[in-house]
């Protein structure tokens, strides 16, 4: 198979799991050989599609004059709501939607004359070159009878309501009587937190290349975090059988949640390709990326926290208000983390939504937990200051020894060790307990910390391992590597499981012709795919051991299979390691060119549910008990900020993150995940915001010059450490995800440090200079 990292040069010794192996796909990437979804330019007769999107946020298309565009050289087809081929099943129909594995919103544009948000596709031009298509698109005359839009939940025209459900969480949830607990609490804190709209902005925009290899055979090269989910959804929408669609994603230039779904352009490209009879490439422009693949919704949360005079939590009442689209009741579920993070006796949460002229917001790195952690972790900081406690102390005082939401014990939890290690690495003991005391020249210096946590989301998936007699191996799973290191860590896992050096392993992913596995999202891929590969390798050994003990010429002949083990590529007797032979010998004599194993890996509480393949030795009671664990990764962030009280600027001067997430497969790629998440969070804390015009409901800064993400100069040297954990319950490899937890708590750590520096609590993100100056005008 082409376009895969080849067998590679490695820098790690045998026994590579847990070693800082450099990326196996690094060479392919830096030399430009790695082909991304918009780079399949060799497809025969490839042509280009360009979207024309709506200027206005609400209205009806009254006419689209395509005549000037039609006349342009190279133009092959122009689609509008009047001639777009009908979908077999459409997101616009609630019944149809049930067939989709991955549909982010209940609306498909260009199915009618309705315009519901600025940037909504209203037409698509297909031409022989990108330039021809782009230019022709500018000649389309789209007439829209504009109506007055609603810009957000803050718009006076907006009306809010409590939905029945948001993302599987009830609109109102109660555990105990939190209202009463708050009312009677000796210490009561009430605060409201604001969050600006954020966009994922992966470096690689959304891109789909669709190639109909036959009328009933479609191959799609797509920027997706889940090839299987995209395959099923596309098949349903296009009226094909699942296996008639192949989806390929060999490399992804970042996803952060926005590439977890089948957005309109993913469907439009194959529709266009079918109509013109040629492969079609459709790439979103950067401005289109802002209205093409969702966003993190703007929101506010009010948290009412009741505690004893000693600082023990009694109850929390949480309310969130946010903007959603005209069709979906979508909100990130912030309440989850607030509910579980501490030993909290009573909790109540209510979601309020307001429909506005925007597309549905979507999963964005650590959805819910990220903004939820801002509210709870700032409020915990307030509690610490109010009672004169150290912020770590107040957290230890409320340490959750078990999951308060269901009473289950944790499958593993090393948060105390994270606090201790983080404090030590950071030098927390040097912190002045009073805020607003430390100066460095004109700058105010502050220390802050916060807790991080992210749940283990159940997922399952298959893998195949093929070991060749010459000691090479090919490993396959239809997973995606978001650029995070999946290629690398799975290579390591396979190498150790097969007892071969990592450079002998080639891991293939990102294709629906490979064993099916779930999407890379919710921080599930490392745990699930590593487990399935590990278990598939076990199957290879079982086959080889069987062959050896039945082979008269083998030193292991006649041994019980259960007495034979694999050690560094050698089959040998457990009791007498000297007796055995290399697997290649067994295979040679048996004329086996290769041996294959397949397995299903399970991540989360499904791992040990009855029926799971792994750990077949467990008895029924053990299995049921195992499924009764609560599974989360935990961690902590510490930071030092410098605030300029006259210029309002906040700069992060030092950073320490300590994470406990089961077994760390590769400290180098894990570290990259943690610093990536922390930087993303620093962006949200200090600068990232997408602004929608309050009257026209259109973004005013949909480009990377004005949507500010941190630059290198904003980021100090970062210290990252891990507390290694042994977790026998979470999956066969004992791995917990590290992707999303790394952003959780980051905004709070920064805000807590700003509070320590200035004595002012900023509760509105991002903390830009205008807000810092405003806060400093208020009395401390």
């Amino acid at each position, binding site marked *: 198979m082409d376009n895969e990292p080849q067998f590679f040069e490695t820098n790690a010794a045998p026994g590579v799991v847990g070693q800082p192996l450099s990326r196996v796909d690094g060479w392919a990437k830096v030399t430009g050989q790695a082909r991304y979804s918009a780079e399949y330019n060799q497809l025969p007769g490839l042509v280009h599609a360009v979207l024309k999107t709506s*200027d*206005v946020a609400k209205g009806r298309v009254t006419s689209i004059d395509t005549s000037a565009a039609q006349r342009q050289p190279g133009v092959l087809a122009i689609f509008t709501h009047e001639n777009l081929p009908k979908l077999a099943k459409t997101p616009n129909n609630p019944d149809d939607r049930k067939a989709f594995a991955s549909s982010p919103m209940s609306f498909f544009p260009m199915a009618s004359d309705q315009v519901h948000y*600025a940037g909504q596709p209203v037409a698509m031009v297909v031409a022989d070159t990108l*330039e021809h298509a*782009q*230019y022709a698109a*500018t000649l389309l005359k789209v007439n829209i009878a504009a109506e007055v839009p609603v810009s957000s939940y803050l718009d006076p025209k907006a009306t809010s309501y409590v939905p029945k459900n948001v993302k599987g969480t009830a609109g109102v949830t109660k555990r105990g009587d939190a209202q009463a607990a708050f009312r009677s609490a000796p210490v009561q804190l009430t605060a409201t937190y604001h969050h600006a709209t954020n966009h994922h902005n992966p470096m690689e925009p959304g891109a789909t290349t669709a190639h109909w290899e036959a009328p009933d055979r479609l191959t799609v090269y797509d920027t997706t975090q889940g090839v299987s989910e995209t395959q099923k959804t596309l098949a349903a929408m296009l009226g094909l059988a699942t296996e008639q669609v192949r989806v390929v994603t060999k490399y992804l230039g970042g996803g952060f949640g926005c590439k977890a779904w089948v957005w309109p352009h993913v469907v439009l490209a194959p529709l266009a390709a079918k109509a013109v009879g040629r492969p079609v490439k459709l790439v979103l422009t950067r*401005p289109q990326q802002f209205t093409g693949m969702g966003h993190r919704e703007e929101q506010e949360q009010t948290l009412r926290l009741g505690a004893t005079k000693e600082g023990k939590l009694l109850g929390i009442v949480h309310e969130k208000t946010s903007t959603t689209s005209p069709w979906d009741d979508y909100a990130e579920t912030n309440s989850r983390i607030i509910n579980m993070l501490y030993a909290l006796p009573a909790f109540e949460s209510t979601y309020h939504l307001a429909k506005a002229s925007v597309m549905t917001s979507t999963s964005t790195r650590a959805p819910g937990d990220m903004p939820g952690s801002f509210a709870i972790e700032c409020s915990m900081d307030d509690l610490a200051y109010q009672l004169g406690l150290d912020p770590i102390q107040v957290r230890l005082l409320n340490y959750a020894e078990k999951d308060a939401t269901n009473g289950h014990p944790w499958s593993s939890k090393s948060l105390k060790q994270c606090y201790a290690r983080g404090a030590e690495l950071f030098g927390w003991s040097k912190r002045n307990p009073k805020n607003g005391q430390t100066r460095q020249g*004109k700058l105010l210096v502050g220390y802050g910390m916060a807790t991080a946590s992210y749940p283990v989301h159940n997922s399952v998936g298959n893998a195949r391992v093929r070991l060749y007699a010459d000691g090479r191996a090919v490993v396959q799973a239809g997973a995606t590597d978001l650029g995070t290191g999946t290629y690398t860590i799975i290579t390591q896992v396979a190498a150790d499981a097969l007892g071969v050096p990592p450079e002998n392993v080639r891991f293939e992913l990102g294709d629906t012709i490979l064993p099916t596995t779930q999407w890379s999202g919710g921080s599930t891929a490392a745990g699930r795919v590593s487990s399935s590969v590990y278990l598939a390798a076990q199957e290879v050994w079982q086959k080889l051991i069987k062959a050896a003990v039945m082979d008269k010429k083998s030193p292991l002949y006649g041994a019980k299979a259960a007495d034979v083990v694999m050690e560094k590529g050698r089959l040998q007797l457990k009791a007498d390691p000297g007796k055995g032979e290399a697997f290649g010998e067994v295979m040679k004599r048996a004329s086996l060119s290769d041996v294959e194993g397949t397995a299903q890996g399970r991540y989360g509480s499904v791992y040990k549910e009855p029926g799971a393949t792994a750990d077949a030795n467990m008895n029924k009671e053990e299995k049921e008990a195992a499924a009764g664990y609560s599974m989360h990764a935990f961690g902590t962030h510490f930071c030092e900020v410098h605030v300029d009280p*006259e*210029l*309002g*600027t906040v*700069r992060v001067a030092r950073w320490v993150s300590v994470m406990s997430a089961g077994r760390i497969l590769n400290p180098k790629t894990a570290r990259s995940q943690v610093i990536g998440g922390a930087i993303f969070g620093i962006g949200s804390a*200090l*600068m990232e915001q997408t*602004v929608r*015009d*309050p*009257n*026209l409901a*259109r*973004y*005013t*800064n*949909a*480009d990377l*010059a*004005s949507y*500010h993400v*941190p*630059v*290198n*100069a*904003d980021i100090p040297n970062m210290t990252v450490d891990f507390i290694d954990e042994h977790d026998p319950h979470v999956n066969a490899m004992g791995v917990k995800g590290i992707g999303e937890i790394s952003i959780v708590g980051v905004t709070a750590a920064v805000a807590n440090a700003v509070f320590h520096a200035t004595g002012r609590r900023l509760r509105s993100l*991002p903390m*830009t*200079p*205008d807000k810092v*100056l*405003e806060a400093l005008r208020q009395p401390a």
Partner: protein
Amino acid sequence: MNDFSYTQAASAKEATGRLKDQAQAAYIAGGTTLLDLMKANLQEHPQLVDINLLPFKGIEQTKDGLRIGALERMSVVGEHPLVVQAFPAISQSLLLAASPQLRNMASIGGNILQRTRCGYFRDAAFPCNKRVPGSGCPAQTGDNHNLAILGVSDSCIANSYPGDLSVALAAFDAVLTLENAKGKQRRVPLTEFYLLPGTTPQKETVLEPGELIVAVTIPTAAHTQRSTYLKVRERSSYAYALASAAVGLDVQAGTIRAARVALGGVGAQPWRSREAEQALVGQPATDATFRAAAAAALRGAQPREHNRYKVELAQNTLVRALQQVAAG
């Protein structure tokens, strides 16, 4: 982007002579502003004349002061020893701008002619008086967080020039040398080069169609040597100024003999503040003086809902810049 023809010219005469339609064609230097605008369909030009081969080069001391050719690159000028030593504020205004890649491409003439970053101007889907006269100015009641508070009008509140260099040039009495299609040269002080929006925000400078910027000359003085450019922005680099200040002081025995002050990020044009200078000259170089000067500079501010913070921020920025220069 529309189709356009492209030609290179080797001399000013050739460049102006090649223009088929002076009002429609455009010169291209580094292209870092022009191509962005064309790709976003905000400017359409049927013809581009590449002026990079023109001899508008050189960074040298002349009897009138420091002369910089309009086609010198931002990075080259910013790092030039003469500029670093004798005109620190100019060097800083260049090196704190944009990114290294952009500075390597971008020319001095192009920098002076860059256009506003107002989000409404930069997106053809919005109405905007500057782009489409008479269509309206949604920024007045919309997202005006980054926009100007001095010299603004009900037609437009954009920082027509959002960048840095011209702020320093405005402070230090720079003079532009322009050459028109007839080969005639004229000299225009930078402070008279930009136009306030009034009711015609589409008219941004006094440059005539087809006219070229040849060079910029900055008189050398004690206050150019003792100068600084301070830029406040939302991230540490690669962002436009929320507020900035170019200042130069000549302080003798604790008393300010001469002062130059211009503000960026807050004016409809690079904002030379003679009010601030008046408040400084003859006064002791103290914080009280600096604060009085800052107050004088912002006296005429007309903030809108989301840029009110700039009144305070610009004053603090100016005070800090003055403190830094006074401290040597």
